C-alpha cells in the first residue's frame, strides 16, 4: 500500500516535458502553485485545468499513474474538506445537532479539495518527468547565488537527490518489514490512533538501523568513486537553455497573466 506514493518517482518517457530544462519546470511549478492559491472562481479553474491537462498530455505520462499519487493523501484531503465544510461561518444551509453547514463552507471545501488535487497533480507532473538528479541540478543552478552568502548549495542539492533516490527503496523496505511483522501477529490496522502509533515503533527501529547502514555504505561508495564535494566537478548533463525552454517560459508567463486576469471570475 505504501508503494502507491508516486512523488519522487521518475516515469521515463520521450516527451517535450521530459526534455525541458529542469529550471523551467521548477519555475513553472512554482507559478502554478501560486496561481492555484490566487484563483477563486470557476473561470480561473477552467484555465488551470486546461493548463494542467495540456501539460499532462504533453508529458506522455499515463493519467492513471498520476492519479495513483493522490491516494495516499486522500485522508488529508478529507480532513481538510470536513474542517472547511463545518467550521466556516456564514449563511447556514443545513444544521443538525451542533454542526452547521454553510454556503461558504461548501464553497471553501470544494475549493480546497480542488486546490489540493491540482497541487499534487501539478507537482507530480514535474517529479514524474524530471529525474531527481536533474531536479537537484536545476535547484543547484537556480540557487547558486546563495553560495555567496555561504549556503552550501551543492551539498544540499546532493543530499536531496540522494534522499529522493532512497525514498522508494526505504518505502519498499518498510513494506517488507511491515509484512514480516504482520506475519508474526503485529497489527497495524486495528485499534485506536495511540495504539496504532505504538505498534509502529517496532517498525521504526529496524528501519532506522538499516537506513544508517545504507547511509554508511553509500558514503563509502561515493568516496571510492572520488567524490569530494562540488569543487572541480564536471557535469554529464550540464544545464543549457535551448529554444523550447524559452518558448516554455513564454507559455508559463502567458498562463500566469491569464490566471491573474480570470482568477476572480
Amino acid at each position, binding site marked *: 500500500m505504501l508503494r502507491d506514493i508516486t512523488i519522487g518517482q*521518475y516515469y*521515463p518517457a520521450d516527451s517535450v516535458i521530459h526534455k525541458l530544462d529542469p529550471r523551467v519546470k521548477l519555475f513553472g511549478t512554482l507559478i502554478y502553485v501560486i496561481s492555484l492559491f490566487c484563483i477563486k472562481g470557476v473561470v480561473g479553474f477552467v484555465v488551470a485545468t486546461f493548463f494542467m491537462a495540456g501539460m499532462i498530455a504533453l508529458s506522455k505520462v499515463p493519467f492513471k499513474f498520476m492519479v495513483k499519487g493522490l491516494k495516499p493523501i486522500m485522508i488529508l484531503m478529507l480532513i481538510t474538506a470536513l474542517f472547511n465544510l463545518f467550521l466556516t461561518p456564514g449563511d447556514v444551509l443545513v444544521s443538525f445537532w451542533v454542526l452547521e453547514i454553510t454556503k461558504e463552507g461548501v464553497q471553501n471545501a470544494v475549493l480546497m479539495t480542488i486546490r489540493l488535487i491540482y497541487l499534487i497533480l501539478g507537482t507530480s507532473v514535474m517529479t514524474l518527468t524530471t*529525474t*531527481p*538528479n536533474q531536479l537537484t541540478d536545476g535547484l543547484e543552478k537556480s540557487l547558486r547565488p546563495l553560495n555567496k552568502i555561504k549556503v552550501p548549495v551543492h551539498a544540499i542539492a546532493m543530499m536531496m*537527490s*540522494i534522499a*529522493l*533516490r532512497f525514498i*522508494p*527503496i526505504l518505502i519498499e523496505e518498510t513494506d517488507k518489514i511491515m509484512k514480516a511483522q504482520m506475519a508474526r501477529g503485529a497489527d497495524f490496522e486495528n485499534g485506536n490512533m495511540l495504539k496504532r502509533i505504538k505498534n509502529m515503533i517496532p517498525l521504526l527501529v529496524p528501519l532506522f538501523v538499516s537506513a544508517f*547502514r*545504507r547511509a554508511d*555504505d*553509500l558514503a*563509502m*561508495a*561515493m*568516496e*571510492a*568513486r*572520488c*567524490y*569530494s564535494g562540488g569543487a*572541480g*566537478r*564536471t*557535469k*554529464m*548533463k*550540464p544545464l543549457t537553455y535551448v529554444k523550447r525552454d524559452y518558448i516554455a517560459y513564454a507559455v508559463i508567463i502567458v498562463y500566469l497573466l491569464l490566471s491573474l486576469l480570470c482568477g476572480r471570475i
Partner: protein
Amino acid sequence: MNIIKARQLVHEYIRRDEEGNVESIQTALNHVDIDVKEGQFIAILGHNGSGKSTFAKHINALLSPTEGSLWVDGKDVADEENILAVRQTAGMVFQNPDNQIIASVVEEDVGFGPENIGVPTETIWTRVADSLRSVGMLKYRNHSPNKLSGGQKQRVAIAGVMAMEPKCIVLDEPTAMLDPNGRKEVLRAVRELNQKKGITIILITHYMEEVVDADYVYVMDKGEVVMKGTPREIFSQVGKLKEHHLDVPQVTLLADILRQSGINVPLGVLTREELVEAIMRIAG
C-alpha cells in the same frame, strides 16, 4: 611492475570510549604480503571476519595502514596526496547493489565517477556508453536502477567503476546477495573485462566455484594470508581448506573422496569434465 604490492600490511581497528581511551584493539590484517601483476585475475578467499574487506578498502585508500605499506600502481596509499589517484587506478565494487548506486537513472550513475574527477562532458558520454556496453547494460541506460535485477544492478556498479578507466577493479563479494543467475551474469562480465580489456581483477568471494578461473588465489584467515597458489594448488589441499572453514567445490570434494578410497584420480580436480575424463581413463 606489480600493480598491487602489500608489504607487512597491518591494520588495527581501535575502539575508544568517550574519553578517548583505547577500549579494544582488533587486528584485522596481520603482516600481509600480497602481490598482483597487471592483467591478472586474483581471488581472495576467507571465512567471515578474516580481513578480506579490510584489505580491499586499503587498495582503495578508504582505510590507511596501521603498519607496513601498500603500493597501488607504484603509489603509496598512505600518502594523502595520492588518494584520488589511487581511487582512480583501483575501482571498487561493493556487496550490496542498492547501497552503491547514487543516481536514479542508470547512465547518470555511471557518469558520477567521471564527473567527480572532472572529465569533460563529451568524454563522459562516450565513457558511459562504452562502459555500459562492456557489461552488456547499454540498452538499460535510461532505466531506473530500482527496476533492475540484482545482477543487473551489480553490472551497472561495475560500469560505474569502468567509466573512471581504472587499471584494476576490486570486487568485495559482489555476488553475495545475488541468485545463481545473477551471479553468473556478474562473473561473466568481470571475466570479460579481464580478458578483453586487460583490467586487473581482485575478486573477494565466499563461493569456491568463482575462484576456479582465477590466475592466483590467496586464502586469508584471522587477518593473515594462510595459503596462496593457483586454484589447482589450493584445491588439492582439501584438508587444509577445511581447517580454515572453507568448503571446496563439489567436484573437487568428490575427487578427493575417491582418492581417499583408493581410486587414483589426480589432485586438485576443478571441473566436472576433468573428473569424468580421469574416471574414464581409470576405467579404461
